[in-house]
């Protein structure tokens, strides 16, 4: 069983690199692709059926970690809202010149607004940089799991996994 995630609460870079659901640097540089940060053998498989490209495989037993076929993934992001563990992120290093986009599930109110400047945080919730909200998607199929996309400088794309919540 993994070590760092169990003592700290979030996976280390090393754990992610070894995870079968995490894309290679080479694939990340090609354009939008999902990063599945699910590294423990837990009984769960909705992501498998969420992918219309059949790029995610769990198979049997159900406790297998999700495997991403990074060549099949087209970066549509449909799986992001379907993961019960909120552990899938859509990363696009080619978002624009010098900036990348990171999409993540965000189940808090109030929702950020498109165009808003936000404080982007890493896996530990620590501020990393400021970002701009590109999209806030919450269609019916998301079943009330909104997906927020923020644009951040490219170098922070593999760190940013959320935004600072604004207090009501």
């Amino acid at each position, binding site marked *: *069983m*993994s070590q760092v*995630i*169990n*003592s*700290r*609460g*979030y*996976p280390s870079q090393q754990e992610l690199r070894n995870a079968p659901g995490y894309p290679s640097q080479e694939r990340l540089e090609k354009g939008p692709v999902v990063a599945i*940060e*699910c*590294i*423990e*053998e*837990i*009984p*769960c*498989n*909705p992501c498998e*059926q*969420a992918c219309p490209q059949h790029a995610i495989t769990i198979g*049997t*037993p*159900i*406790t297998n970690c999700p495997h991403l076929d990074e060549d099949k993934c087209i970066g549509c992001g449909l799986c992001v809202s*379907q*993961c*019960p*563990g*909120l*552990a899938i992120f859509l990363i696009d290093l080619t978002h624009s010149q010098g900036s990348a986009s990171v999409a993540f599930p965000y*189940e*808090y*109110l109030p929702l950020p607004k498109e165009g808003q400047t936000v404080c982007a*945080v*890493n*896996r*530990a*919730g*620590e501020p990393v940089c400021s970002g701009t909200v590109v999209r806030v998607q919450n269609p019916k199929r998301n*079943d*009330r*799991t909104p997906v927020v996309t923020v644009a951040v400088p490219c170098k922070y794309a593999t760190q940013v*996994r*959320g935004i*600072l*919540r604004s207090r*009501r």
Partner: protein
Amino acid sequence: MREVDLAVVGAGPAGLTAAIEGAKRGCSTVVLDMNPHPGGQLIKQIHKFFGSREHRAGTRGIEIADTLFHEAESTGVEVMVRAEVYAIHDSTLEVAQTFGEDSPILPSKEATTSHSRSLSIVARRIVLAMGGAENALNFPGWTLPGVMGAGAAQTMINLWRVLPGERILMVGAGNVGLIVSYQLMQAGGEVVAVIEATPRIGGYGVHAAKISRAGVPILTSHTIVGASGESRVERAVIAKVDPSWRIVPGSEEELEVDTICIAVGLRPNARLASLAGCKLHYSPSLGGWVPIHNSRMETTVPRIYIAGDLSGVEEASTALEEGRLAGICAAASLSKERAGDPEEIKAIEQRLLSLRSGPFCQRRQDAKQELIGIAETQCPK
């Protein structure tokens, strides 16, 4: 006095599926639940469930409760709410039922005339599915208002829409502690920290990651030393513990909090089963004292079956399967065809085995096997 083929105690995931399977096989079936709403713990599980598609993974618990309740009603199950079973002797269940206001916390203005009745139900078969109960934790100040079970806090926010406090300390980093921390933040609270006495986070990493990126520190090898305040919790003192569970001197830290949630595990709610004469076995992996049961979910008392957290604390997905198993076996034992539906039973057993594989669940599978082994010698043949 009423007579039924099958009486189920508890309208959670296990109880409802047991009742559905019983009713589908022609049993007159009644489900009794002490709460005002059927669904057990599902009615406050606002998060998407883990598991497989067969177990409605990806669906929120609240919706699973609705689906199950409607399926029960459409198969002819009678669900009685606010109906507390306080005794079982032989085939008779003694029930106290109350009628009246909808909420014990927010009574509606009109409903001032609550009344109650008692009734006896004679059942040819009984399925007990009373679920689990939260463990308590004793420390100086633990009786102050503001100290509560994490499950209680979850009921307050998700069922009654009451935020118990603004600044919360969560004690325990199992799945309940992690999920309720997340939901307290969704409800507008601030979780100051999650502390965990063992050196590792017990719950799923994805739940931990979710609250970590919301800025909540998860402190392993930490315990609560005490809570204090004038008339309610105003602060908590936490400290590091060493590998032999002793507090590390000088590591005490004071946190300004108004609520302390305790999430240190659940135990099978076995009181009624014990009262009915079911023999219990102590199984730490299953949460404590568990009624001994065989692979058909039958206890040491003939005609009494169990399912769900009562038969060992696990997940809603396993409770759904065990409930089905208990319902099928109870119904089968009433008919001449004692074998029941071997194909269906086999399929359920396969799914249970799969749910209990992997590092998180293997010890439960082992504990279940041990229990079934004990049952071989103690349960009716």
